């Protein structure tokens, strides 16, 4: 889809054209600067097999992220949403790129079922942690291993339909939703998990960029077969939310491109719950389990199982929020012999974050993270398979929302 790169100027044209109307166009933005100190092996983004975003050679003052998220309400029920991202770690690719770009259709409910459709490129509705704009976490800087991976390798490029039962009209203070999507251009999803395993990074991929050195790109259609996901969500009163999702990119593991890109058949299910038992506390847990395969003989050439989960507790009072999270993850290469040492990863991590909201626009976050992992392919880089990595970050975020 390289020609779609030309879409970006059109986004800009669209959101300035509607500027006369009241709140028809809004632009949210975030400038996130960091001071980083890290220990451990070189990060995957820099050509290593470290699990974190930064490493000892990439410390100090860094651009965490800068984005603009324009939203154009074209009609009363149709809006266009985009997230335009800038990172400073692109080595040879676009400095500015899209990470989401979609049409959101929400007809007025005429009964207790509300329909919603999304068309374009967007994140799947799987996380209870990364609920902010552009896959940002509301609770910490670094998402869990589960949601790091979703942000890195997955984007729904296709159509999603949701039917949501609104309980309020029946006297029930809650909602139940069923969601289903069909998509393409996500056949390489799974390759990063085989190469690096699960990681912990707030650097999601963008639509036309890649991650790593040399960069892997995730958004290609290789086998001309669509994938799907289906999910359920349940909100009960104002304190419980449950989400379940079954994902299958339905790729043909034998398909490859002339350039040597492979289709990875990746399937998983995810189950998550968020509980807010009192005014101050939020508890979140998520569990993900699946497998991925590549190679013309189906499961014979390379087949890997994986699992990741986390539990998070967050306490919010006034302008402060303190969050602690425990992550646990592993991959298990069941078959496949041409990649050297097996991609059998085990790891667990603790993350602590304190955030402070300063006025309308500023947020300051301090986060410390420690991850211990074992990953045999590191031996090929003359590193020990077992590594302990840590990362301390101070973030200063300036956030704004403009409306016309």
């Amino acid at each position, binding site marked *: 889809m390289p020609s779609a790169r030309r879409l970006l100027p059109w986004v800009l044209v669209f959101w300035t054209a509607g500027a006369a109307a009241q709140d028809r166009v809004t632009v949210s933005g975030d400038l996130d600067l960091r001071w980083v100190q890290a220990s451990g092996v070189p990060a995957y983004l820099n050509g290593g097999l470290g699990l974190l975003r930064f490493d000892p050679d990439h410390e100090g003052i860094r651009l965490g992220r800068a984005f603009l998220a324009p939203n154009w309400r074209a009609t009363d029920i149709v809006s266009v949403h985009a997230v335009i991202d800038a990172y400073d770690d692109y080595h040879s690719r676009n400095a500015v790129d899209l990470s989401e770009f979609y049409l959101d259709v929400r007809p*007025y409910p005429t009964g207790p079922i509300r329909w919603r459709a999304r068309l374009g490129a967007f994140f799947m509705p799987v996380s209870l942690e990364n609920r902010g704009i552009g896959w940002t976490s509301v609770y910490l800087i670094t998402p869990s291993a589960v949601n790091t991976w979703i942000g890195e390798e997955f984007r729904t490029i296709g159509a999603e339909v949701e039917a949501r039962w609104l309980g309020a009209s029946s006297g029930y203070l809650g909602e139940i939703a069923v969601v289903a999507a069909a998509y393409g251009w996500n056949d390489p999803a799974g390759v990063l998990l085989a190469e690096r395993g699960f990681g912990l990074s707030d650097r999601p991929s963008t639509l036309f960029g890649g991650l790593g050195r040399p960069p892997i790109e995730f958004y290609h259609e290789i086998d001309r077969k669509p994938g799907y996901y289906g999910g359920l969500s349940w909100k009960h009163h104002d304190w419980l939310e449950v989400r379940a999702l079954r994902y299958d990119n339905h790729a043909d593991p034998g398909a490859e491109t002339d350039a040597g890109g492979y289709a990875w058949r990746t399937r998983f299910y995810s189950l998550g719950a968020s509980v807010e038992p009192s005014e101050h506390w939020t508890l979140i847990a998520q569990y993900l389990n699946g497998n991925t395969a590549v190679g013309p003989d189906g499961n014979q050439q390379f087949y890997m199982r994986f699992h990741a989960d986390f539990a998070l507790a967050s306490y919010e009072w006034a302008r402060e929020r303190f969050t602690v999270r425990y992550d646990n993850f592993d991959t298990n290469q069941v078959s496949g012999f041409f990649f050297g040492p097996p991609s059998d990863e085990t790891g667990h991590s603790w993350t602590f974050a304190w955030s402070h909201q300063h006025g309308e626009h500023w947020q300051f976050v301090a986060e410390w993270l420690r991850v211990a992992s074992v990953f045999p392919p590191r031996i090929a880089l003359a590193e020990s398979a077992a590594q302990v990595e840590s990362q301390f970050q101070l973030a200063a975020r300036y956030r704004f929302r403009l409306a016309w």
Partner: protein
Amino acid sequence: MVVDRDGRGVGEVVVAAVPADAAPGPLTPPKPAVMDQRNREFQPRVLVVGVGASVDFPNNDTVSHQVYSFSPAKRFQLPLYKGQLHPPVTFDKPGLVVLGCNIHDAMVGYIYVTDAPYFGITAPEGGLTLKDLRKGDYRLVIWGPYIADAPASLVRNVHIEADEPTTARVQLSLALRARPEPRPRRRDWEY
């Protein structure tokens, strides 16, 4: 006075006094009312009006809203707006009208349209005083969005003498369905 099963007062409860021996209907023309929108919430969350009342829906929030109802008592839509763009909406049938916003699913408001001549909403401590009731027998009808008890089980019959205060205390037998005060959220940065 409306109290929960532990004896604590319950606010945002509609109490309507229906005369037992007279045809229902407002004594005076219904008063117009206002359902405001602030901080991505309807304010008040619960409003009670007489049949035929017109309700204004100003949006004093920082973001636009799209108000709708598909309740049988009143179906309507107010397309995307801020400020005072739309004329008031008239509620001409008794019943419960559940309000939503097409952009913010978490926004829920309730307008209880009644043909009773006397009505009101309890204060946060659960108290409500209805004044100037005529002498006679009344049925007190009670409804609240967080009350789990069946409405019929909460009906109270009271006798009113002229110039003589009468009190009624209604205790719920089931727990409320949710905390009456949802936690404040910094929603602005969330989808």
